[in-house]
Every structure is written in structure tokens, then in C-alpha cells.
């Protein structure tokens, strides 16, 4: 068999299936050829090769046809790649498995069937067919029939059920084939939606904002908090809804008060204030009082200035601390 495909005829390799001859040993007599001579030599040598192929070809057993001698070619010996993958053998359908097990043979049905009623030949399917369900004028009642049940409607519903069952089986067979990967060529599967497990709720449509947030949420789980992640074109910079923390400078400049001291004082005062019962700023109260009394005195002095202020006994504005204390109302004792 192999000898038919590829033969050595005077040192040429001949592939009859492809009508090819290959001469690996030819040497050109002189390299410096001009174009025409080169082509001529190619053609002449090609003629020799083709002659060898035709020798082999015409020696094959041929049959005479109207247009000429027909020869049966052997399969080609040089293998060339396929253009599409091999089709997978399709798995047998449920009926085929059952039929094989039981040994049921498939009988070809005739298109025309003899109808006893009209004693004529009618077609099996289609217009004016044999045993048409819609043509039944009378359905005889049986003992098993319930009263009140419409037999015509019953027949129609039964047929509908049968058709639905058949459709379900057909889809099941296709699914089985799709699992193996051997779907018939005219059928295509398209995934429409991904359902949530268990329930039949329709998948909720995700909004644009939610999607944007999801990416951000995922980014925060990275080591650097998603700060240096490469962003796609059109993606917004990461949102930062909180306050940025403030840190003190390492080296304190001149002209500023001791920042660290201020910071710690602030914290301490807050803490102390929370835990102390005297929620009262003494210094502030004193200042307020002093300012008030100064104002009052100026007004009084403005109205009546008989004696000079120098001679008058000055009341010390800083006396009576205890009085002011007593005056104060402790607002909201801290608990």
C-alpha cells in the first residue's frame, strides 16, 4: 500500500495522491544563469519529473467514463494539517440506548398510508392526514370515563403533554451532548444569565456606583491599601472619605511654640476636663468679670467725676475670688 503512494522513479519521490514529484538531488550545472535560461532549465527539469508522475498515474487501473479514463487515486502521502478540529463522536440519545438494549430496529415508514374509513391512500403527516385528531366526530364513552370531563379537551391536553415531554427529552439529549462537547453543528448554546443558588430570584442589576465601590473595597485588602494599584483608563482615583491624620514635624522650627507640648497639653486638658467636676474655666470667668466691671466703672466715671480717681480708694478688682466662685453655677456636674 505504501509503495503505491510514494515511489522512487529514478531518484524522485512521487506522491500520487497529491500528484507531486520531488527531486532532492538535482544540482544546477552553473550558477551564473540569466533569468530566461534559469526558467527554461527549471521547466525542462520539471518536465522530466512530471513525466515520471504521469507514468505512474497512467499505469494505475482505470475505468472508462464518458469524458475520459477515470483513475482511482491513492490517498496522499504528505500529510497536511487539518483546518478544523476533529468532530467528537456524539453520545447516543436516551432512546438510542434503550433501543440498542432491547434490540429495537428502526423501520422506515411510508409516506402514504391506507385509510380504512375513506378506503383511500392518505399521507401520514400534513394536510388531510390519516388519523387526524381534529377530525374525530364522535368519541365513544368508556366505563372508565368520568362524567363531566370533555373527552376532546382531554385528548388535546394529552397530546400537548406528550409534545412537552418530547421537547424536554430533546433538550436533555442536547445537554448531554454539550457536556461531552459533541453538540450538533446547527445548535448553539448561549448562556443568558447566572442564577443565585437555590432560589429563583432574578439577579439584581448592579448600579454603576456599586461597581465602582467594589473595586475600591477589593483594593483596600492589598498590602498598601490599594494606593499604588494600576488604574485602568477611565477609572476614578480612590475615594478617601475620612480625615487625613496630622503628624508633627520631626524638626521643630524656631518661632513656633513647643508643638509637642501643646499637643500633649491639649490631650491632657481634655482628659482632665472630662474627669473633673469643675467644668469651669476660672481664668476666663475672671477676665470676663474684670472686663465687665471695667466697663461699668468707666461709665460711672464718665457720669460723675467729682473727685479725681487718684484720691479715691481703689477697689482691688482682683479681690473676692471666693465670692465669684460662689456666684458660679456648676453647670452639669460631670459623672
Amino acid at each position, binding site marked *: 500500500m505504501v509503495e503505491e503512494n510514494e515511489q522512487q522513479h529514478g531518484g524522485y519521490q512521487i506522491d500520487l495522491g497529491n500528484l507531486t514529484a520531488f527531486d532532492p538531488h538535482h544540482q544546477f550545472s552553473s550558477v551564473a544563469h540569466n533569468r530566461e535560461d534559469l526558467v527554461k532549465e527549471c521547466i525542462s527539469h520539471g518536465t522530466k519529473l512530471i513525466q515520471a508522475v504521469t507514468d505512474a498515474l497512467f499505469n494505475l487501473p482505470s475505468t472508462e467514463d464518458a469524458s475520459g479514463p477515470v483513475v482511482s487515486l491513492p490517498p496522499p502521502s504528505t500529510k497536511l494539517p487539518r*483546518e478544523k478540529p476533529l468532530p467528537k463522536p456524539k453520545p447516543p440519545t436516551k432512546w438510542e440506548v434503550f433501543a440498542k438494549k432491547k434490540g429495537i430496529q428502526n423501520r422506515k415508514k411510508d409516506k402514504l398510508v391506507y385509510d380504512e374509513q375513506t378506503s383511500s391512500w392518505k399521507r401520514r403527516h400534513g394536510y388531510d392526514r390519516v388519523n387526524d385528531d381534529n377530525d374525530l366526530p364522535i368519541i365513544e364513552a368508556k366505563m372508565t370515563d368520568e362524567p363531566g370531563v370533555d373527552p376532546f379537551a382531554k385528548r388535546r391536553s394529552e397530546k400537548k403533554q406528550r409534545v412537552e415531554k418530547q421537547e424536554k427529552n430533546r433538550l436533555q439529549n442536547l445537554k448531554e451532548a454539550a457536556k461531552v462537547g459533541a453538540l450538533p453543528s446547527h445548535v448553539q448554546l448561549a448562556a443568558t444569565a447566572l442564577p443565585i443558588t437555590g432560589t429563583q430570584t432574578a439577579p439584581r442589576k448592579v448600579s454603576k456606583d456599586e461597581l465602582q465601590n467594589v473595586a475600591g473595597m477589593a483594593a483596600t485588602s492589598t498590602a498598601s491599601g490599594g494606593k499604588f494599584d494600576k488604574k485602568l483608563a477611565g477609572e476614578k482615583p480612590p475615594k478617601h472619605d475620612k480625615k487625613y491624620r496630622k503628624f508633627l514635624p520631626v524638626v521643630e522650627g524656631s518661632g513656633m511654640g513647643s508643638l509637642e507640648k501643646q499637643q500633649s497639653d491639649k490631650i491632657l486638658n481634655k482628659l482632665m476636663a472630662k474627669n473633673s467636676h469643675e467644668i469651669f474655666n476660672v481664668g476666663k470667668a475672671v477676665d470676663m468679670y474684670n472686663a465687665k466691671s471695667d466697663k461699668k466703672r468707666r461709665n460711672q466715671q464718665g457720669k460723675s467725676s467729682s473727685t479725681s480717681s487718684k484720691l479715691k480708694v481703689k477697689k482691688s478688682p482682683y479681690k473676692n475670688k471666693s465670692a465669684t466662685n460662689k456666684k458660679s453655677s456648676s453647670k452639669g456636674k460631670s459623672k
Partner: protein
Amino acid sequence: MLKSNTNKQSKPMLSIKTPKSLRAKRALEKRAPKLVELEKKTLILHGTKTSNTLNAVLTEIYHLKKDNSVKYSRRNDNIRPFEAGGETSLEFYSLKTDCSLFVFGSHSKKRPDNLVIGRTYDHHIYDLVEVGVENFKSLSSCSYDKKIAPLIGSKPFFAFIGEGFENVEELKHLKEVLLDLFRGQVVSNLNLAGLDRVYVCTAVGSNKVVFTHCALRLKKSGTVVPKVELVEVGPTMDLVVRRHRLPDESLKKEAMKVAPELIQRKVKNVSKDAIAGKIGKIYVPDQQVRSTPLPFTPKGVKRERREAKAKGDDKHSEKKQKKQKQDDEASA
């Protein structure tokens, strides 16, 4: 569109799409993968810039393969077959036109008169060969007798000359690709009257191939085999191999697979005789007559039994008698 309402579990909802007309169904079946493949279609297109020679080359290749090729006339700027991302357009066109071979022409200063011949497997790039065209001589410039002009669709002969086709990897690849490109359909029955064209490829040097298309003339000779005469007809060009990309091994293996049912296996023990016709040999294993298990053992015939009975030493009959007595007592 038929929706499958049967599965209420966590499987993706699948809908099965079938074609609504027979015509669409036939078109889909034509494009489906088959066990034995029909001839490959070719897509001919060009890139951003082409030269006059390249235009002529592309049209002539199209004419040579008129019945199984598609020629695109617009320029395609985004096709770069040898680059990683530049082949998506090619694959898309291959899918749309169902072409598994393509010839892409382009002209640039660096690569003048460039032809990229490529093949696809499953509409993805399988392999590529880039050749430059030099010394192009077109169909119209050759003068010949019009009667011997080859018809479209005839199966061609191929002649490959030169040791370069065996030794140099690029030329080997080019040989395979040229064969695939111009071969046409693989037939099992061939009408010998319809043979009229030859492609002659000569390897000159380590990267150059002289490609010629000739018409075939069969002359009467004394014997059954006619005398062959080649007349230069069609395009003649020098192909200078520039780059090539071989398919990777796993893809190649998959593409070269033959269906197991097509491999002809040797039938053993069958031979053909001119006189007797088809003869088969049957090997019959040795029959062990002595030790063949019989469906029954004739117990009464056994010699030992008989002798023992005669003696009255039979244990088995004693047991039987005992059992019978017991049964009688039980039933009574």
C-alpha cells in the same frame, strides 16, 4: 429561542439556539468540522501599502484559485501577522469567510513586495511564511496557444526541484505551504483528461525559490503513457524567504490527527487468491476431549460406585436411607 426551565439548581441558564430556516441550517453544517475535510478556502488581502507588482501578484493568485478564494480589495492597516496582537483581524476574517489559508500582501521600504502566506487551525493562526516577490512575470505577458490554457479548478501537478527543499527548514516549510495553497481538493477518483496545469518550484540557493505555473500538454506516444510537454503560461516569480513561524508542537500534533475510524488497519488471516477468491484462515484451538465438562455426570455408571454397592460399604446410600427415615417420621 427555547429556554430551558427544567433546571432550577445553581447551573447557568442556557438557551439553545437553532437556525430558523433550512438555508441557515445548511450554511452552519457546511462550516462545521468534518471527519474528512473538503478543500480549504483562501483569503487574499493587502495591508497599508502595495506596489504595482504586488497588486498584480495578488490578482493572479486569485485568478489561479478563482473558485475557492475570496479577495478583499480594501487596505487593512491593523494587520501585522508576525506581531502578537496584529492577527486578531485576520482571525476574524477567517472566521467570517470560513477561510483557513490567507495571502497577505504589503509593501514597505524594509520589506518590498512582501507576501505573507499563512494557515489557520480552528480560525487561529497556525503557521506563517513571509516571502518577497522578485522578477515577477505576469499571466498576460506570456504568449501561448489559447487552447491549452488551464481551466479553473483543475487538479494541478507539482514538481519540486532542489535539495534545499529537504535540507533548509524554511524551504521545507514553504514547500508544505505552497502545496497546501495550490493543491485544491483531495480526490479519490481522477479523470485523466482533465489534467492541464503544473506548478514547478525550484530551490535556488538557500532561501530562494523559482515558482512557475505551466500548462500541460499531453502528446501521443507509442505506449499508454502520453508524452508530457510543459508550456510556461502563468505567473513566474522568485520567492525569497524572509521570515517564518512554525506551529508549536502541541498544536501541530492536534492538527495532524486523523480520525481513528479512517486509519486502515491490517486485517489478519485474510488473503486473496486469484482462483479461490477471498480466503480466510481459522485457527482452531486444541480440544481436550477427556477433560471437557459435561452438563451431567452419570453417577450410576461409575465403576467405583457399583463395586462399593456390591460390597455394601456405601456411605452415601446409608446417609440417604437415614434421611429418608427422618423425612417419613417428620411427615407422619
